[in-house]
């Protein structure tokens, strides 16, 4: 979308300018085809070049979307690809950077059309892309999009070059977007830290502290650490200002980290909850030690993979409709896992309700068989699942980063818990389930078809595992061994929450998630995990029934 827009703007601008071939365009073209060792310098020399083609051309180059088009015997022409008006085959026309006009066939004079695959994109390297970025940043200060302006300005500030100061100050005078204004003020303050006048420097320090700039804090600390007689050392007044500033900034970030940890804990807890919820029903309520629970999640994940491929085949992997494959995959994952659960219950578990240890062994066997089946069907390697566009990226609030896929998982976990509560407490099936789980014989005596209820409950729990698998496919890997990674976590949550109690699982998963994330920054991922496990052992010594122990005859 943005690309189309920029090409459109380029077209407009090029049309306006094409009458007067000017020196600036020639410089741009020269930079594009400069020899490899001089290219970085040539690109850097483009800073401040006033040419409408500069930004679209460099942006496309950086994204490897600038192509060299060869026509007949003439030397290759750098060009951008743009959709051909009124053409349905997806063929593109090449707009030459030199004049913004379509590249024509020298023999017939007709515009040439291309598919991107037929052309070779102009190469870039990391140093070259950095040079392009630097040029674009200066140009970006006047970009129509506030987001681009802001990003460019932030970088210019970090570069701390005094020559950018007039450009930024000029922009501040006419800038209207508040976010960009604050970025401008930060950038100016950053550059002014090296100002000769002490008042300007002090003001800059205060401004940066108010903006909670981490980069500034690092810089301040370096300056504080300088010996008093070193060149560039701060005067006593300045030193005090620097120290206060560092403290303000660090306080801010420790608050940010605290809230960030809470969010990350919540998200980790939601993942645990989704994993464990199905087990809370099959193991917690029904008392079946289901070692194949992890593989039921894998069924859900592979179902997502299949739906993704179907969508990609039907609508094309880049299409708008493809982005909604995940929503379609959720019910499919539930159904597929529920079906497999149903088969396991009918085939194995129904004979083992009174023999929990045998059910442990039998379901372990089922889990091995399922893993091998996945290997045979989908291959031993992990399969690739592409996140839909709306689950990629993230946003930030008060400097705390929120990734969209994490937000989705939290929201989804809440929905699923609510759904489970509804099913168990507000439907006839739920009533029967609770009756059978409390006392199977008595329920049977008063006419409840316990075998049917068992079957449906197990299928429901398995379906929840499928949903968890679908969600996990957006966070981690999908492969035949994926279930084994999560089965321990699932049992950990259900046991510490209290067997036989869904609410206990909710509390336990959130507790474990938050504790894990709070410990991680201090102790590291490995030690954090060990400590959490250790804490759970101690907790279960103290309260063997878990957080919310249930008294039930079926469990005794």
């Amino acid at each position, binding site marked *: 979308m943005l690309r189309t827009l920029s090409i459109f703007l380029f077209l407009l601008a090029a049309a306006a300018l094409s009458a007067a071939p000017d020196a600036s365009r020639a410089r741009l073209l020269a930079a594009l085809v400069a020899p490899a060792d001089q290219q970085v310098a040539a690109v850097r020399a483009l800073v401040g070049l006033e040419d409408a083609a500069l930004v679209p051309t460099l942006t496309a180059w950086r994204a490897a979307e600038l192509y060299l088009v060869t026509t007949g015997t003439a030397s290759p022409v750098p060009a951008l690809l743009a959709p051909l008006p009124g053409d349905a085959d997806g063929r593109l026309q090449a707009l030459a950077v030199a004049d913004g006009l379509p590249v024509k066939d020298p023999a017939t004079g007709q515009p040439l059309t291309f598919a991107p695959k037929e052309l070779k994109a102009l190469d870039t390297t990391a140093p070259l892309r950095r040079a392009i970025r630097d040029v674009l940043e200066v140009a970006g200060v006047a970009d129509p999009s506030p987001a681009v302006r802001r990003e460019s300005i932030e970088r210019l500030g970090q570069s701390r070059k005094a020559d950018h100061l007039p450009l930024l100050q000029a922009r501040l005078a006419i800038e209207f977007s508040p976010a960009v204004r604050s970025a401008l003020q930060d950038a100016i303050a950053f550059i002014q830290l090296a100002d000769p006048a002490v008042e300007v420097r002090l003001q800059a320090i205060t401004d940066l502290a108010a903006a909670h700039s981490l980069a500034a804090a690092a810089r301040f600390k370096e300056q504080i650490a300088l010996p008093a007689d070193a060149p560039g050392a701060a005067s006593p007044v300045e030193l005090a200002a620097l120290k206060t500033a560092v403290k303000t900034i660090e306080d801010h970030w420790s608050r940010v980290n605290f809230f960030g940890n809470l969010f990350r804990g919540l998200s980790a807890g939601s993942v645990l909850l989704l994993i464990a919820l199905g087990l809370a029903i099959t193991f917690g309520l029904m008392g079946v030690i289901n070692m194949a629970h992890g593989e039921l999640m894998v069924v859900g994940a592979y179902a997502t993979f299949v739906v993704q491929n179907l969508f990609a085949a039907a609508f094309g992997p880049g299409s708008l409709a493809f982005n909604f494959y995940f929503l379609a995959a959720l019910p499919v994952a539930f159904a597929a896992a529920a079906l497999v659960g149903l088969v396991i219950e009918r085939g194995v578990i129904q004979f083992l309700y009174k023999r929990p240890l045998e059910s442990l062994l039998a379901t372990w066997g089922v889990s091995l068989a399922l893993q091998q089946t996945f290997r045979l069907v989908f291959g031993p390697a992990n399969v*690739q699942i592409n996140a839909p566009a709306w689950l990629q990226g993230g946003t930030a609030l008060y400097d705390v980063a929120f990734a969209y896929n994490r937000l989705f998982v939290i929201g989804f976990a809440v929905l699923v818990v609510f759904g489970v509560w509804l099913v168990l407490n507000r439907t006839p099936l739920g009533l029967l389930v609770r009756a059978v789980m409390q006392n199977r014989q008595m329920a049977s005596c008063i006419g409840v078809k316990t075998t049917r209820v068992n079957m449906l409950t197990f299928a429901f729990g398995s379906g929840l595992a499928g949903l968890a698998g679908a969600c996990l496919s957006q966070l*981690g890997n999908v492969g035949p061994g994926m279930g084994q990674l999560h089965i321990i976590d699932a049992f950990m949550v259900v046991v510490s929450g209290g067997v036989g109690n869904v609410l206990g699982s909710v509390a336990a998963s959130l507790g474990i998630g938050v504790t894990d994330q709070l410990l991680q920054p201090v102790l590291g991922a490995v030690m954090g995990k060990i400590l959490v496990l250790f804490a759970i052992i101690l907790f279960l010594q103290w309260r063997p029934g878990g957080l919310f122990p249930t008294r039930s005859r079926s469990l005794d």
Partner: protein
Amino acid sequence: MLKKITQTLGAGAFALGALASALHAAETVKVGVLHSLSGTMAISETSLRDVLLFTFDEINAKGGVLGKKIEPVVVDGASNWPLFAEKAKQLLEQDKTAVTFGCWTSVSRKSVLPVYEQNNGLLFYPVQYEGEELSKNIFYTAEAVGQQATPGVDYLLNELGKKKFYLLGSDYVYPRTTNLVLKEYLASKKIPAANIKEVYTPFGHTDYQQIVAEIKQFAASGDACVVSTLNGDTNVPFFRELANAGIKSEDCPVMSFSVSEDEFRGLPTKDLVGHLGAWSYFMSLDTPANTAFKKNFFAWLEKSTVPGIEKKGRVTNSPMVLSYVGVYLWKAAVEKAGSFEVDKVRAALESGVVFDGPGGKATMQKNHHMTKNVYIGETLADGQFKILKSYEGVYGEPFLKGTFK
């Protein structure tokens, strides 16, 4: 004693059979292939078996070694480290292989090491490793720390001007030893300890939220980079989280030492574009030797009748090429020594045989490691690397701990 009796029996009672096998032995030389063809490591190691079988066929087609055809004995270590030792014993004592090509993980190598030393066997080891080991019975065609990690860091320091290093690794011996060396190396380059952060995650870790949040703040100053020794599929959640947090390769590049072209077959490369890798071979190397190697290998794959071999979407990578180079170095040494005897072959190898392989010239050193080229590459969207810089003829030194102090 029992062995002796069976041997006597074998020689006496089955004279005819022994004669036949002796005749057979005159035409072929047995060579062991010891890789995991099942279990967790199978994904990576099966590729090495494939390339080894290809190399043997290539050599046999040109007349073999010292006029003898190579007869591969393929055994499966099954990602089970004690089993590796048993299989090695079988190769040496039962099959009497002249040489073995094998092992991927350091723990599998450590587990077969005593077997090779006891039986005076010969093992070629092709996968990047942490060093700190030198056995007279093992030749390490692998990248030592100084042939991957330190050139990688050099690139970050000198070409990209990075000043802050976030060392992230899976929690086992290779990342920990590598990072130990890197910390000493960085200290010798005047990088203060406060600018280095070292973090490990367990195998199969999927929750990188905390670490990515930390990297984001670490990289706020714009001069930071990540040096990653994360192994296997943990890279997927890591790079996905990194992309979601909006950390771009231009701001904070990730230099990975354990992600090669073969791993890209199972990774969403989109999230990795622009990040860096360091190896002594890249599939994208544009040299005649590499073009020929790729052409012949893929043609061989096409025709191959090895059961269950994957033919679609195959790539070549550094461990594969180092396996290939290992076979040719062994061949060169055998021809130089004029014998398959381990002691003579070792002496020939130590004298410095050379092979011009797909990754450039490789010379075996006296310390059983190789002098070879090291390349820094940048990930492209198609799962290949674009080569940014090459360091020619880097000496292989296994004992780096403490040398930069």
